[in-house]
């Protein structure tokens, strides 16, 4: 005999009920300039479900204490909750070992950590770091800094007019000199899903390690770091329905073991004397100072949330919505998509005639529709497409066809105003 809950799971139609999920996000229930809010800036940051907000509130109102050091009850509860979140992350990306999950402030800090701790003492003049032309600034600048420090050379694999990595060129740029390949899993400016499996295999074949920037990926598709066999993977909690200021660096254990600490301080040591300091074991070696405890716990709650909805269901649903949005957008006179990769996720980047994206953004805001306009921290992508900026609508699991219709109507309005 099945309980009602089980029956719902069995009879629920494949897919996802965005209208029902929407109710979990209190912020979506408001008007902007007198119109119901349509939030389409999810690639910048997603909204937070009640479940995440409540987990953070519960932590601060019931369990708040510093972790790892206290013998008292609250400290134990806080430690359990924080370490429990680490286990949720491990399962979420299917890492082999808890020690491979390092809590950081976000994708940016994760990349900087790898650049400085993995690369600084290892790379030298003549070594090469290979990235793609569609990277977010956070996967460009840390490598430029590292190159300046070590004399290593930064190489950039080009993209084509669809916004796809040109694989032939990528392969040509790989050589035994390549020590590290850093590639975005899903591009925030174009929506392109990179063929990371092939990239990783090719990089490993020349002996390079691979870092994937998963900032845009984790909320839109199931990620399995073991199946991918990537060496490092980074993402931010706030783009995964969790709080800002928390994120994850995954690294293969043998690599992390061999890396020196990134910062010094409390929690990352085992024993300190003025003569000698013995570093703590993984992952604490990389977690100096009191961390963002509530941020880790909030991330854990966010992972529970997306896992309950189902990553495959999310991917499928968003794919349908993206197709619909693309079809509709192409009906808008003057609209040109920037980023038309065959393999694409959740992001619609575009320009509209000669109307500047900033003007589009302001008029859309007046219609209650929140999108991003600008260079999306990917100035080289803007240069490639020879536009100063784009307008970008990015989708999440709570967006609906209605949201897309509102976007399209607002774009017609932009054309009308600027007609």
């Amino acid at each position, binding site marked *: 005999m099945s309980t009602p809950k089980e029956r719902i799971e069995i009879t629920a139609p494949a897919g996802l009920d965005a209208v029902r999920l929407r109710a979990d996000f209190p912020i979506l229930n408001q008007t902007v300039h007198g119109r119901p809010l349509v939030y389409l800036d999810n690639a910048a940051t997603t909204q937070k479900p009640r479940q995440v907000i409540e987990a953070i509130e519960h932590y601060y109102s019931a369990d708040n204490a510093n972790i790892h050091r206290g013998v008292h009850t609250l400290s134990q509860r806080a430690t359990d909750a924080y370490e429990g979140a680490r286990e949720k992350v491990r399962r979420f990306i299917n890492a082999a070992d808890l020690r491979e999950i390092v809590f950081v402030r976000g994708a940016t800090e994760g990349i900087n950590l790898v650049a400085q701790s993995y690369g600084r003492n290892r790379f030298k003049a003549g070594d090469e770091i290979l990235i793609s032309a569609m990277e977010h600034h956070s996967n460009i600048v840390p490598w430029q800094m590292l190159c300046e420090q070590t004399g290593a050379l930064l190489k950039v694999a080009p993209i084509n007019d669809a916004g796809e990595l040109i694989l032939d060129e990528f392969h040509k740029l790989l050589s035994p000199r390549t020590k590290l390949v850093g590639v975005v899993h899903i591009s925030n400016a174009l929506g392109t899903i990179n063929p990371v499996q092939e990239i990783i295999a090719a990089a490993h074949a020349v002996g390079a390690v691979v870092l994937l920037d998963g900032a845009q990926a984790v909320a839109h598709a199931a990620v399995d770091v073991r199946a991918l066999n990537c060496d490092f993977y980074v993402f931010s909690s706030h783009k995964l329905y969790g709080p800002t200021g928390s994120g994850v660096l995954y690294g293969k254990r043998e690599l992390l073991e061999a890396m020196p600490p990134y910062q010094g301080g409390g929690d990352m040591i085992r024993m300190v004397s003025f003569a000698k300091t013995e570093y703590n074991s993984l992952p604490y070696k990389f977690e100096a100072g009191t961390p963002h405890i509530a941020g880790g716990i909030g991330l854990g709650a966010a992972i529970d949330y997306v896992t309950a909805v189902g990553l495959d269901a999310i991917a499928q649903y968003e794919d349908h919505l993206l197709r619909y949005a693309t079809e509709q957008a192409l009906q808008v006179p003057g609209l040109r998509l920037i980023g038309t990769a065959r393999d694409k996720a959740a992001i619609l980047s575009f320009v509209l005639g000669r109307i*500047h994206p*900033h003007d589009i953004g*302001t008029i859309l805001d007046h219609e209650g529709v929140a999108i991003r306009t*600008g*260079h999306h921290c990917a100035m080289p992508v*803007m240069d490639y497409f020879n536009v100063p*900026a784009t307008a970008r609508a990015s989708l999440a699991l709570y967006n609906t066809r209605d949201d897309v219709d509102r976007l399209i109507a607002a774009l017609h309005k932009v054309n009308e105003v*600027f007609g």
Partner: protein
Amino acid sequence: MSDLRDLYQEVIFDHNRHPRNFGKLEGANRHAVGHNPLCGDRLTLYLKVENELISDVRFEGMGCAISTASASLMTERLKGMKVADAETLFGRFHDLLTNAATDDDTASLGKLTVLLGVREYPARVKCATLAWHTLHAALANQDHAVTTE
């Protein structure tokens, strides 16, 4: 709720579609490049300054409707103006736009008042002031790029 038409007034559309004094200025003796990295706007301003008087001014570049119209309106206004008066006007314009002014006397702005709509849009104030920051740099003869950041 502010009306979109307060921001995008007809004069602004007109200057955006048909910017005045657009293009390179032959014989310019001052120029500067202004850049708003946030939105990618970039404009180059050329001035001919003789005896502390702006005898001619032109601009070129790419920007949103607000920044293009502001640059166009600015060039119209500057022709024949004393350098010191131009700087004073910039100060006044800037203060009124950023709500730093202690009074709301907009008379000295003349036609530039059409840009006051941006006061309701803090994210857009820099679009309206980019041309003026560039002017300031050109007059100071800073030949490097200035940014709004």
